[in-house]
């Protein structure tokens, strides 16, 4: 895929080979996790580490989902193609953060108190929507390999994967409903999601035949 830039070096081009960009982005996506591990090893998680880890992983789950959803708008607005090409990797990182966030909640925060967890899911709206978002992303991660696209057929695979918008919106709602009074951070994340989605909407609207 990336051999073109490798074998035909163009002195005018400052484009890094795609493979390098891919690994660079992979590393960028891993940085928040590495930082968290670093904080953990140096005693930097504060007085309530379990709460800290939970908030931190939740934040980065939503942020990496927003990064994933920025790929298409970047192509629409600036003609960049490379983010779209590595969307699967970005999306799987988003799922990894969501899965770690949930694992922390189940294993560390509640230590497998399934009764308490079930009550949370049923009774607490912000946990209900968070869990739905997780299930959606689980389905998308499970069908993220090439074989799944073949088996489902490109059309229905695409339709299924549009659920990522729902998951992101539910993620924002989860955040908004969780906070006590300071809505600044959830609002910023929600506005970014809204902007990303409106670029798509605008593009679809513009490309409609009149």
């Amino acid at each position, binding site marked *: 895929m990336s051999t073109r830039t490798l074998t035909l070096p163009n002195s005018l081009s400052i484009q890094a080979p795609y493979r390098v960009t891919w690994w660079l982005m992979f590393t960028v996506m891993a940085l928040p996790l590495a930082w968290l591990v670093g904080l953990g*090893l*140096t*005693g*930097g998680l*504060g*007085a*309530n580490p*379990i*709460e800290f880890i939970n908030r931190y992983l939740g934040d980065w789950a939503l942020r990496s989902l927003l990064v994933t959803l920025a790929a298409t708008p970047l192509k629409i607005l600036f003609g960049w193609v490379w983010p779209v090409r590595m969307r699967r990797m970005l999306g799987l990182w988003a799922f990894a953060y969501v899965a770690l966030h949930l694992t922390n909640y189940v294993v*560390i925060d*509640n*230590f497998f*108190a399934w009764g*308490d967890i079930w*009550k*949370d899911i049923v*009774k*607490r*709206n*912000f946990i209900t929507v968070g869990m739905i978002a997780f299930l959606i992303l689980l389905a998308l991660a499970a069908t993220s390999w090439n074989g799944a696209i073949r088996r489902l057929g490109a059309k229905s695979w695409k339709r299924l994967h549009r659920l990522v918008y729902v998951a992101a919106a539910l993620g924002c709602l989860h955040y908004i*409903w*969780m906070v*006590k*009074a*300071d809505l*600044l951070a959830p609002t910023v994340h929600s506005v970014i999601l809204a902007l990303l989605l409106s670029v798509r909407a605008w593009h679809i609207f513009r490309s409609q035949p009149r």
Partner: protein
Amino acid sequence: MLIKIPKSWQLRDSDATPQNIYKDRRRFMAGVLKGTGVAMAGGIAGSLIGRDAFAAWVRGEKLANVVKSQYTVDEDLTPYESVTEYNNFYEFGTGKDDPFDNAKDFVTRPWTIEIAGEVAKPGTYDIEDLLRSEQLEERVYRHRCVETWSMVVPWVGVSLASIIKRLEPTSKAKYVAFETLLDPERMPGQHRRVLQWPYVEGLRLDEAMNPLTLLATGVYGEVLPPQNGAPIRLVTPWKYGFKGIKSIVRITFTEKEPPTSWNLSAPHEYGFYANVNPDVSHPRWSQAKERKVGEFFKRPTVIFNGYGEEVASLYTGMDLAKKF
């Protein structure tokens, strides 16, 4: 006769850290770390020693003439660092470590408290005049936050009842309303309207007169750090932490139930009473369990935070699910 008791909780100018050393504290700390040969890369231990060295510089003065009170609990104290670096004090930011970072330079002297409303001796009192004749007590109380974490804190303070008696509330006084300082220049969190400022809280007069109710001016035997509500804050250990209004500048005796900040912000989530109750959920989370800061496993929450013997009689016949 006026007995002059030394203003033990007051930070005297002569006792304060010389400013040149204070301003140079980071370099000082770095020196300490180097001198003791602590490898910062040495993981948790290194980091904890670093925190201690820093905390030593922001700690307040030791309080003198403090008597131990009968109020104590047979549990491990929550470490000083956790008590003073993990705070909800939105006047200094909404993050848990914001108050520690942003309240450092908060000046708490001079400080006056206005006494108003249904009371025989209203007026603006210097905090020192209000506290001079009171006995400082150390009380180890459980502290339960509405967010389901808890601590065990060795407060130093004076009984609110004792102050109220001296102020002589009139027969019309049924409630006591408290107000935090409103000064966005000194309390930067007030620049953002996260809550209605100033923060207000209230108690029924009989709750305020309960022997458990404390006005704290210190913690861990030292002057209360700003991030914990200096110079004076309320402590009602059978209620959720947000009732413990900080940096109080006004106390008003009222006939009607006064407004309270979190109730104004979200009426169906936070009531006037805010008594710790494992059976009454916050609409968005259960209150049945709590995590004591520093522990891994959650523990069951106890009604009135374990202070039922002292306070349950205040609420006889009241539906605690409705008057939450």
